[in-house]
């Protein structure tokens, strides 16, 4: 807190109150001309929309509850706030491990469907209602058996111990074609789709849009799911003495009974642990995660950080959550959830602005367009199955 800042704040306030002396005005103008960011501070104050937003935020912090929290910590002799605050997330959060995809080719030994066919399945279709509005994702997925046969699912399902898939107490799919220990189903959740399923051990798995997994058709000593790409959230039950493994292209997560999120992409994988314990494995390197932490594979090690449960579990809570995200990152989420293609103008990508916001995602696309326009000040338009983002 240096002297210059204090003076500038005072001068700014005086400027607003029309009380600036000439010399103070000079100081203000020279500060303004120093950088674009400085000018922006004043511009935001002079813009009624941003001012209104800022005033609302300024008044949104609950002082009473905050002091009660601090006071109770003082009483208990605690010196760390965070663990307590994140307790409320333990109730909702599970460990979500995000595993990013593994090389496709490696896993398609048995599949008679070619890779391009499978990835086009993942593209999905844009959903519309009767008025033509673009709708958010619905429950659904495509299950591909080891013989290449596809089954379309539109409901959550249960994976039984004998490898059959069932819902509504009616067995519908069985994979008897291969007795191979390695045989699996490929589960493709296209864009604009989402699905949950349960396993014979009581574990529950949520799969986000635009994800591909392999789930076992035989129950082996170890329960293993391969996350080829995309994102899953798991609540894993303890089952006899078997471990639960989530495998990705970039590493492995070993679960010791817990709730976690995994997101996987070509480059990396990130695991967020809500409750319980997991072990991250990559070749010789292992890392155990404690609750409320995330592990990211980087530079030949697992980097462990405090979890941002709000952000990492947002999808499972059916919410879009952007915390200082670039427009491209936001665009990816929208593409996955609605199946539309987002085109961001080159000028917009160039300016490197980041945005924050939170909203439910079980809404038609036009609601998201409105929110995006509001938080970014950009011009967003829907054209057929495309979303365009440009400067105003």
């Amino acid at each position, binding site marked *: 807190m240096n002297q210059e800042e204090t003076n500038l704040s005072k001068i700014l306030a005086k400027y*607003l*109150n029309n009380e600036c002396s000439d010399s103070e005005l000079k100081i203000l103008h020279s500060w303004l001309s120093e950088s674009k960011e*400085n000018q922006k501070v004043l511009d935001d*104050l002079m813009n009624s929309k941003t001012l209104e937003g800022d005033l*609302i935020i300024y008044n949104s*912090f609950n002082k009473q509850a905050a002091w009660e929290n601090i006071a109770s910590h*003082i009483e208990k002799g*605690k010196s760390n706030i965070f663990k307590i605050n994140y307790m409320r997330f333990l109730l909702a959060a599970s460990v979500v491990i995000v595993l990013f995809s593994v090389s496709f080719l490696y896993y398609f030994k048995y599949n008679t469907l070619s890779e391009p066919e499978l990835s086009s399945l993942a593209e999905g279709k844009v959903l519309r209602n009767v008025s033509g509005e673009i709708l958010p994702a619905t429950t659904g997925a495509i299950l591909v058996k080891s013989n290449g046969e596809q089954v379309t699912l539109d409901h959550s399902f249960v994976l039984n111990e004998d490898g059959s898939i069932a819902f509504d107490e009616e067995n519908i799919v069985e994979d008897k074609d291969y007795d191979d220990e390695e045989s699996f189903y490929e589960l493709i959740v296209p864009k604009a789709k989402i699905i949950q399923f349960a396993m014979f051990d009581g574990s529950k798995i949520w799969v986000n849009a635009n994800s591909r997994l392999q789930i076992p058709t035989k129950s082996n000593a170890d329960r293993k799911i391969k996350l080829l790409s995309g994102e899953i959230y798991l609540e894993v039950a303890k089952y006899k003495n078997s471990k639960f493994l989530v495998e990705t292209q970039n590493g492995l997560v070993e679960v010791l009974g817990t709730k976690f999120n995994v997101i996987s992409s070509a480059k990396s994988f990130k695991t967020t642990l809500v409750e319980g314990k997991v072990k991250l494995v990559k070749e010789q390197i292992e890392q155990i995660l404690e609750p409320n932490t995330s592990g990211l594979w980087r530079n030949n090690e697992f980097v462990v950080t405090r979890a941002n449960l709000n952000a990492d579990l947002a999808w499972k809570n059916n919410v879009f959550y952007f915390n*200082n995200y670039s427009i491209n*990152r936001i665009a990816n989420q929208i593409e996955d959830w609605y199946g539309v293609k987002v085109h961001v103008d080159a000028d917009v990508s160039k300016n490197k602005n980041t945005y924050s916001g939170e909203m439910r995602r079980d809404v038609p696309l036009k609601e998201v367009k409105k929110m995006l326009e509001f938080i970014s000040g950009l011009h967003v338009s829907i054209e057929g199955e495309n979303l365009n983002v440009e400067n105003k």
Partner: protein
Amino acid sequence: MSTAKSVKQEFDKHYQNLCFFAYTLLGDHIMAEDFVQEAFLTLFTKFDTITPNENVYKSFLYTSVKNSILNWHRRAKVESKYHELTPFEDIVYLDFDNAMIKTEAIAEVNKLISNLPSACQQIFRLYYLDGLSSKEIASKLNISINTIKTQKLRGLKYIQSKLNPEYFLVFLFLLK
């Protein structure tokens, strides 16, 4: 005065500003409040080692929050590089100086609202801070919509008399 009481005094003075400051840099309410609350906890534990001076307390609190944010940001930067499809885009630049300036400026503007005559102020707060519509305010306070309009106009005139004419235009839009 007990330490807790002294800390509470500082809390009443600075909590809101600190939260807004942190929020400006983080974009996340919960994280912002966490960091700020921790700063106050630290103030409590270290209270006896700090020079009993207003500016020193203020400086301590802001430095505490700043450090928490810096630590978090260092780790978040690592993540975002690997999360993005284009690796080098998302480096968020932390502008602590401007966050500070912005915080104090908003605090000033907020004070302005607090200086409004009380009937006006109540309506202002309900409209802008609680986000109620004129209709909702009318039924909540049991007054006519006309009264609301009158009060808003009064607020306008009051602010106009206090403000830089250029800045007043901003408020004009706010008050529509």
